[in-house]
Every structure is written in C-alpha cells, then in structure tokens.
C-alpha cells in the first residue's frame, strides 16, 4: 500500500529548504541587528489561550486543529497553534514581564484548516513582536524592519498598504448597531469580506459622506488623512485620536522616504489590532502584515501593556526568491574515496574528510554507488604510497600527496590559481 502525504500538508525539498533558510537567514540577520531576540513557543497550546481573548473570529476558530490529548479528561482541548502572536504574548506574560520593553522574533509554523486541501494547512511565518511601547515610532520601526528584510531578499515591486483598526472600530461604534450586529460586521471584515463596510447604510448624512470618502479613496500621502481629518473633526470628533495616530505614522514614513498606499477597507486578519495595520505585497501578492494590538495583553490578564508586531509569510516568499539570490558561492565539494571494507584506508578516509571539513570544504564519503556528475574534486585514499591522489575531474589533472596538509595545500593552491585567473 502506498503511504501518502497527509492531505493539505507539504514537504520541503532540498531546493525549497535552501530558499527557506535564505529567507530565514535574511530575517534573523536583520532582526538581530535591530536588537531583537529570538524565541520559540510550543506547537501545542491550550485552546482557551485563543478563545479567552475573544479576539479571533468564530470562522477562524472553526478551522483550528484542536483535540483532546492524553491529559484531556477534564475536557480541556489542546490546539496546534493557529497564530504566532498570541503564544508570544503568553510567553511574555509568563516569563518576561520584568522587561519594560521586549523586542522578540520567531520563525514558527501555524496550522489552519483549508477545505480544499490544495493549499498548505501548515504555514510558516517569520514574526516580530515589539512589546511594552505605544508610539508611532515603534510602529514605523516595525514597518522599516519588515521592508529591510524584503529588500534584502530583492523581490521587485514591494508595496506597503496601510489601514487603521481604530478608525474602522470608531465607525462601527458610531453606526448605532446592536453589539451583536457590530460583532457580525466586524467578523465579516476580519474574515476578508472587503464589501462588508460598503454595504452599511448609516442613515446619517455626515457619516455617509465620511464613509464614502474613507472607503472609495486610496491615499498616497499624509495629506489624504489630513484632508479627511479636516472634514470629520467637526461632526465626528470620535475619529480624531485614531486619525492623529495614523497621521503621525505616515508623516514619519514619509520623512524616511517610504512609499505607501492608504486602503482603509482591507481589515482581513486584524482580529486583535487596535491601531495602525500594515500589509506588505510583492507583485500583488500579500507576503506579510501586522499592526498595533494594545488590547491583547490586557485581555490575557497580562496588565496594561501595549504591543505591536508583524509576520512575513515564508511559504509565499519562497516562491519569489530568484535563482540569482540563491547563487551565492558555496563551499567546494570534495568526494573522498577509500576502498570499502578496508578498515585502515577507511579510517584514513574519515580522518582526512574531517580535516577538509574543518578547513571549510564540504567532504562527502564515497559509498560506492554515487554518480560523480557536477563534481570537481575526487580524493582517493590508498593503502600504499602515495596515500592520497587528488583528481581534478573538470581539468582532468592528477596530483599526489603523502599527508593531509599536502592535500590542503594542493587544494588551496588550485583555489588561489583559480581566483587569480578570475
């Protein structure tokens, strides 16, 4: 019987893992330089970690992988983490609360059911959380950090789109809907229904005006928000704090020379966000997003601690990595061949391979069946002198050596010749 891969899951081949690690390395490198520290949370969490804040939508919670584990007699369900931020917030509350400000990052998988099974249900994220500070500067730090990672990966057409959860929520509060209706519309927006806001007919002329200005237009400068503010301040003073916050963020981004687009309508996935929401696109595909979530830690009984963060979607970025990005010089490969079954030469083979690895080469032991295509160097280990024969398979040359040092010297000389020729 053929054993198949679990539906909706994916393998990562050596080629895909190279792209995965390249993204991870760029991400880790940037984060460490900005002063962020790496954390890792468990794959399994209690389900109530995700239900208790009341922030995730029923639609998302209906797609989590939850079950009763071996300890589940109390009815307490566990879940494969469906989100990266909430576990990190829990980790912070658990063991890092003494830190006034925590800059944390992680590379983690999240699990969300997808009905067709054609898309992967296990998604990888590079996430960053900045906990303990509430300021536009902090939001801009995150946006710039994310853009720096993307630029380092060199995909073209990086696009930044901004929205503001405070503004959307102020609107919904102003509409005079029942709490139930408000929750329903909020859930629709969160689940990605871009027309949910547009369907609302507020019935108040001043709201109608502001709503259409907000929804129909897409601004490209802080001027857009300032125009909007001038219009609504008189009639809708409730919108002012959110607009001011938003303006501060875009002013700073502008001063730093970043381009962006303001698009209020798209609120997908901002479940716990309270302030500015930012999303990153490459060639029209969303590759990451984040925002400010000041209420999450208080809702988790962790005290009045503000935070913001973002995640880049590794699976999508992997498709955008160009072959050039991968074509970094790699360590020279050397195949070490000792006569199989001959303990004395095998021992020498293991020993010389180890020395080669220490010197920075990739040394593979020949196991008898490998094809030698694409390989430049072959090192034969012999029982009688000369102990080592080094063959340049590309240039069809043969060199003899008696010691490991002589082998290294030969290889070093050939590499030096090559670079001087270049």
């Amino acid at each position, binding site marked *: *019987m053929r054993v198949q891969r679990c539906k909706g899951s994916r393998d990562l081949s050596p080629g895909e893992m190279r792209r995965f690690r390249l993204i991870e390395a760029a991400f880790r490198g940037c984060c460490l330089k900005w002063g962020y520290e790496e954390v890792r949370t468990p794959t399994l969490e209690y389900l109530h970690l995700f239900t208790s804040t*009341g922030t995730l939508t*029923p639609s998302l919670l209906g797609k989590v992988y939850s079950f*009763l584990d*071996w300890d*589940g*007699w*109390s009815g307490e369900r566990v879940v494969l983490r469906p989100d990266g931020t909430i576990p990190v917030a829990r980790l912070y509350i658990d063991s890092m609360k003494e830190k006034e400000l925590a800059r944390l990052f992680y590379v983690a998988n999240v699990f969300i059911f997808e009905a067709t099974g054609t898309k992967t249900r296990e998604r990888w994220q590079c996430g960053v959380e900045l906990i303990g500070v509430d300021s536009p500067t902090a939001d801009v730090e995150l946006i710039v950090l994310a853009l720096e990672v993307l630029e380092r990966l060199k995909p073209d057409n990086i696009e930044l789109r901004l929205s503001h959860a405070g503004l959307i929520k102020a609107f919904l509060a102003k509409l005079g809907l029942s709490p139930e209706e408000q929750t329903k519309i909020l859930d629709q927006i969160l689940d990605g229904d871009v027309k949910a806001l547009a369907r609302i007919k507020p019935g108040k002329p001043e709201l109608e005006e502001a709503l259409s200005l907000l929804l129909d237009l897409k601004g490209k400068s802080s001027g857009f928000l300032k125009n909007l503010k001038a219009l609504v301040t008189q009639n809708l003073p409730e919108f002012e704090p959110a607009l001011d916050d938003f303006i501060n963020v875009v002013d700073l981004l502008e001063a730093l020379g970043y381009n962006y687009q303001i698009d209020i309508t798209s609120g997908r996935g901002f479940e716990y966000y309270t302030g500015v929401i930012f999303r990153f696109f490459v060639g029209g595909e969303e590759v990451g997003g984040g925002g400010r979530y000041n209420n999450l830690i208080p809702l988790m009984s962790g005290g009045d601690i503000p935070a913001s963060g973002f995640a880049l979607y590794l699976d999508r970025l992997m498709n955008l990595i160009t072959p050039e990005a991968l074509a970094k010089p790699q360590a020279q490969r050397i195949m070490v061949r000792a006569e199989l079954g001959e303990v004395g030469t095998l021992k020498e083979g293991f020993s010389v391979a180890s020395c080669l690895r220490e010197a920075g080469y990739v040394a593979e032991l020949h196991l008898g069946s490998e094809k030698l295509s694409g390989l430049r160097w072959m090192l034969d280990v012999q029982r009688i002198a000369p102990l080592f024969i080094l063959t340049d398979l590309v240039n069809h040359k043969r060199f003899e050596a008696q010691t490991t040092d002589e082998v290294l010297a030969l290889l070093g000389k050939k590499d030096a010749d090559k670079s001087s020729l270049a």
Partner: protein
Amino acid sequence: MPIKVALPKGCLLAETATLLQRADWGLSGYHETARFYHLKSRRFPNLHAKVFHEKDIPIQVAVGNYDLGICGLDWIEELLVKYPSSALVKVKELGYGGGVLYMAASRSEEASTVEEIRAKSDIMRIASEYPNLAESFAVKNRLRRFSVFPLWGAAEVYPPESASLALIPGGTREELFTCELVSVSNVLSFSAFLIANKNSWESKDMGEVLASIYDGLIPFSAERELADKGRPSSADADRVPGVAAQQLSREATNGEVWLALPDGHQQSPTLHLLNKAGIQIDDYPSAVGNRRPTSNLDDVMIKVIRPQDMPLQVANGNFDLAVTGRDWLMEHLYQFPSSPVTELLDLKFGGVKIVAVVSKELSVSDVHSLRQLNAERRVPLRVASEYVNIADKYARDNHLGAYRVIPTWGATEAFLPEDADLLIENAKTGQTIARHNLKIIDTLCESTACLISNPKTLSGSGKGERVESITGILRTAVEDI
C-alpha cells in the same frame, strides 16, 4: 446497479417503516423487534437496506458505504458542523420525527441568556450527545473558556451540578420544563431527512426509489401542518418562566456524596446488589424516566446516567462514586492515561468478554493471520467499535498496520462484512455474534460491573469516610454472593 440504503433504528423506526410501507417497498423485518440488520425489498430487487443507529447514518452515507439514508437533521448537522466538506446531499425533509435542540441551563442557574453566560468567568461545562454542535455554539457565541463533555445520553439530568449547560433535544418546551431546565438558545429545529451520498446523487440513477419515497410522503403533509403548529418556536422557548429553584439543585455544594447509577439493562442487577447491601432506592428503575431517585442513605444524592459516561464524569469530580463496567473504565483510561479515576471494587455482575470479531467468510482464525491478511491488502483495515480507544490500542499492540477505527453507537455487528473488517465488541454468550454469521478470533479481556471513584476529589472534602463506608457495605454484599 444495486442501491444501498441506511435506515434508522430507535425513535424514527416506526414512522420510517410506515413511510416505506406507503412507498410499497415490501421490506421484510423492518420493525422494533427485528433481530437482523440486512433487509431486502420485494418491489426493488436491487435495493439493499441495512439498519443502523441513527447517529451512524450520516457518516455511513458521507463515506459512500450507502447511497441513501434516513435520519434526523440533528445528526446530519452534528456531522456537517465539524466536517462541512462531507459528501452529503440533504435531499428532502420527511416531515416526521420533529424536535428542537435546545442549549439549556438549570432553572436555578443565574445565567439563562447567552449574554449572561458569556459574562461568567468560570469554565462553561457543556454536556451533550452532540459535542460538535455544542462546540460550535460555544465558538459562535464567543464563550471565553469552555469544556464540552461528549455523552452517550441522559444529558438532561446533568445541569446544574454536573454541567453548566446541556445541549439536548426536546419535542416541546414542556419536556424541557419537566427536566427543571430553561432554554438559553434554540440551536436547531430538526425532523427526519432523506439524505444521499454526493457521488451517488450525481451519477447513479435512483429515480424510481426516490419517486416511491415522495409518493409515500403525500399522506404525511396534512399531519405535518398539525405538527408544525405544535412545535415550539424559539420565542416560546425563551419565555419559559424562571420559577424558584427546586430543592435538588443547590444542595450539591453541601458536601453530599454524588452517586451515579446505570440506566439500561444493568439496572436490575445493580438494584439487586444495593438491596442486598441494605440500600433501598425509590423509583429505580423508574417507569416514568425519573433520573434522580432517592435512597435511605444519608447525604447521598443519586443520578441515573449512562455507564459509558461515568468514568469521565467521575474524573471531573461531577460524581464521587459510580457503578459502571470495567470495559468503560478501560476505554476511558486508554484515552486519558493521566485520569484520576480508579476502581474501588469489583461488583462481579454483568460479566462480558471483550472480543475481536470478523465475518465467518474471512479466512482468518486469529490475530496473527489477520495481520498477514492486512499486510497484503491495498486498503486500510476498517475496525468498527463502540470502544474506540480499546480498538485503537488493540490494533496498535497487534501491529495491524494501516487501519482506521470507525466509532459506532451500538449494533456494531451490523457493520460486518460490508462496512467494516474487524469489530471489537462485547459478548455475553456469543449467540448474537453467531446469529449474524460472525466469529470470534480473539478475547481481549473480561469485564464485570465495578465501583469507581476519584481519590483526588475525595481527599480533604470530608466525603472520604462516607465513600469508604458505602464501599464497605457493598464489599460485604458482593462477598456474600
């Protein structure tokens, strides 16, 4: 091409039989006292019908073992709410077997609306035979923290002491009211439904069989209108008056020992043993379905529930003592090895063997030959059982290779040979197994009734001594037998 139909036993059987009689199927042996599960139709020679527990029918139709099925919408939704992509088509409402699924709380509970429940800070314990619908209710209503206790039955007796809420079917709101419950929310109105497997519906000609069912339905329409009038609306359900709490409700906190006694066929041997020990129980077994009998034991409160549900309930401290079967204790402990439930006493009645069963047609004589047979098959072995965890452990321990455990809700022997390859079943005499052309290939263990408890909840509660004294009385009675 044969058409396979799954028909319900239990409460939908009589009306479904009437419908199929009107449809002139000419089924022999589809009645309450039938002893066989395979039925043939006089009118449609290529129709094969099989009788299942209602809860199994949507699953059997969705996986493609049956083309058509009849069961309540409640069980269809219980499947679809968790597995929305199931290959199931809801073909036609049949207009009988109507009821409402209520999320119900005790009348004595302070929180009787969804808003009030959401506002509560403690963990919401929801007991139900419909765990998927119960979980969906909790998620949709954004309950912050909840535990769903799946039950085999008798959910109505759980609130308020053993659960905060129960998702239960009720025909009318009066039924709810007599259980001391009040509706928090009307979750689903249901009635019997004709369902089809999606692939069969799309590709198989079942026109004649379907037309005969539609013809049989006509006389139902008039009755249905009447039934609709009598059916409770959600507004009615919400208006159930919150009368003062009954004396039963609030006494749980006063340190009484809670004892669970089994319903079903273990009632008379249980009563016999209790009487022998000098314990008198009033109204058990109850002719009117009373699930809270009283006794001559001081400070002991009794509820009658399903023995299958007892280990989980004792683990969670909802009961201090319970009379259940060792098979169900094992089933619980295999699923949850860290559970605090322990056996206090072997009650030595209700002895059964837990056995591995295959069709007589299968050329295997023991588990070793079954393992060999399965190694050569291209599809996984289908293991059907009420004891999902015992079955799973048996398959693991015996290296049965690729296998799937199909949970069933009784009448498991009907699954062989078409819908399963191996059963893990209990057998008293082996006669039922032989009658269905099956054979036992292995005995896993023997099981008798036992008294179970949870030492964790007893320690420091002052109940320990009373539990010990009841255990002592019962031990003497058992030894006398």
